[in-house]
């Protein structure tokens, strides 16, 4: 007879990529490395996209005009995450929010902290919390998270 039967085995698989973000996103990421947020305006519909992709998905034309945007904006939607997964270090529950920067016409997703998950609301004003500049690189992770913004209304 054998010893104790095995119940399960670990079968991780990994895909090794070399990622290149393209020309427009490279410009965006290089600006982020300097603490600046750069969008691009479509010459036809005048919408401002961030992060930049180099073209307008509606009009199919190159977006060449650059627009510097502030690091504050509005929550357009959000998700409260209660289920941890492997390799994740953030304390549960946390909030992933779609944030539309002032002057932008599209939202991007980022972490929303310094507020209880059940206090988050659509339309909430938020501001970026940056890492110390000596930790900056060409990544949106330079923004540690967003936090609620208190400003005169």
């Amino acid at each position, binding site marked *: 007879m*054998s010893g104790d*039967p095995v119940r399960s*085995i*670990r*079968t*991780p698989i990994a895909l090794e990529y*070399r990622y290149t*973000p393209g*020309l427009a*996103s490279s410009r965006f990421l290089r600006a982020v490395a300097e603490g600046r947020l750069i969008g691009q305006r479509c010459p036809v519909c005048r919408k401002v996209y961030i992060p930049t992709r180099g073209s307008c998905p509606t009009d199919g034309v190159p977006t060449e005009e650059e627009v510097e945007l502030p690091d504050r904006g509005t929550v357009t939607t959000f998700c409260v995450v209660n289920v941890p997964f492997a390799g994740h270090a953030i304390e549960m529950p946390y909030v992933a929010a779609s944030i539309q920067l002032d002057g932008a016409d599209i939202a991007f997703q980022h972490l929303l902290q310094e507020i209880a998950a059940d206090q988050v609301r659509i339309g909430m004003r938020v501001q970026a919390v940056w890492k110390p500049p000596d930790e900056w690189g060409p990544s949106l992770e330079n923004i540690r998270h967003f936090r609620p913004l208190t400003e005169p209304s």
Partner: protein
Amino acid sequence: MNEVLSAPHRLEYPYRRSVGPVLGRFLGGLREGRIEGMRARDGRVLVPPQEYDPITAEPLDEWVAVGPGGVVVSWAWIAEPLLRHPLQRPFAWALVRLDGADTAMLHAVDGGDAGVMRTGMRVTVRWRPERVGDIHDIECFVPATG
């Protein structure tokens, strides 16, 4: 300043899968340095073992000890191993039919040089010193005489 950025990116899925009672016993045997196959209804010995007969679909439960020697049925030389390959030097993927078995099992053969490899060559198991109940408890097969 206008050059395109580029960075390594690793996408990993940390799967764990349950193996069922038959492969579970097979892997438990490997941990103890033993390879067992399953006799099918037509008398053939299947290695790795199967839970059900591949022809009649009946449950199977007649275990048969096989190996540790065997014969290379087919092989492919890997001149440049990838990161996750079982050996980090040139080796062969091979279908090995263990002594006492009627089917062949895919594993690595540490032949050292492609010139050593040939269909029909004798090989034997090289066990991993510390075994956990996994197919990698067989580190690889190595050329054998006789």
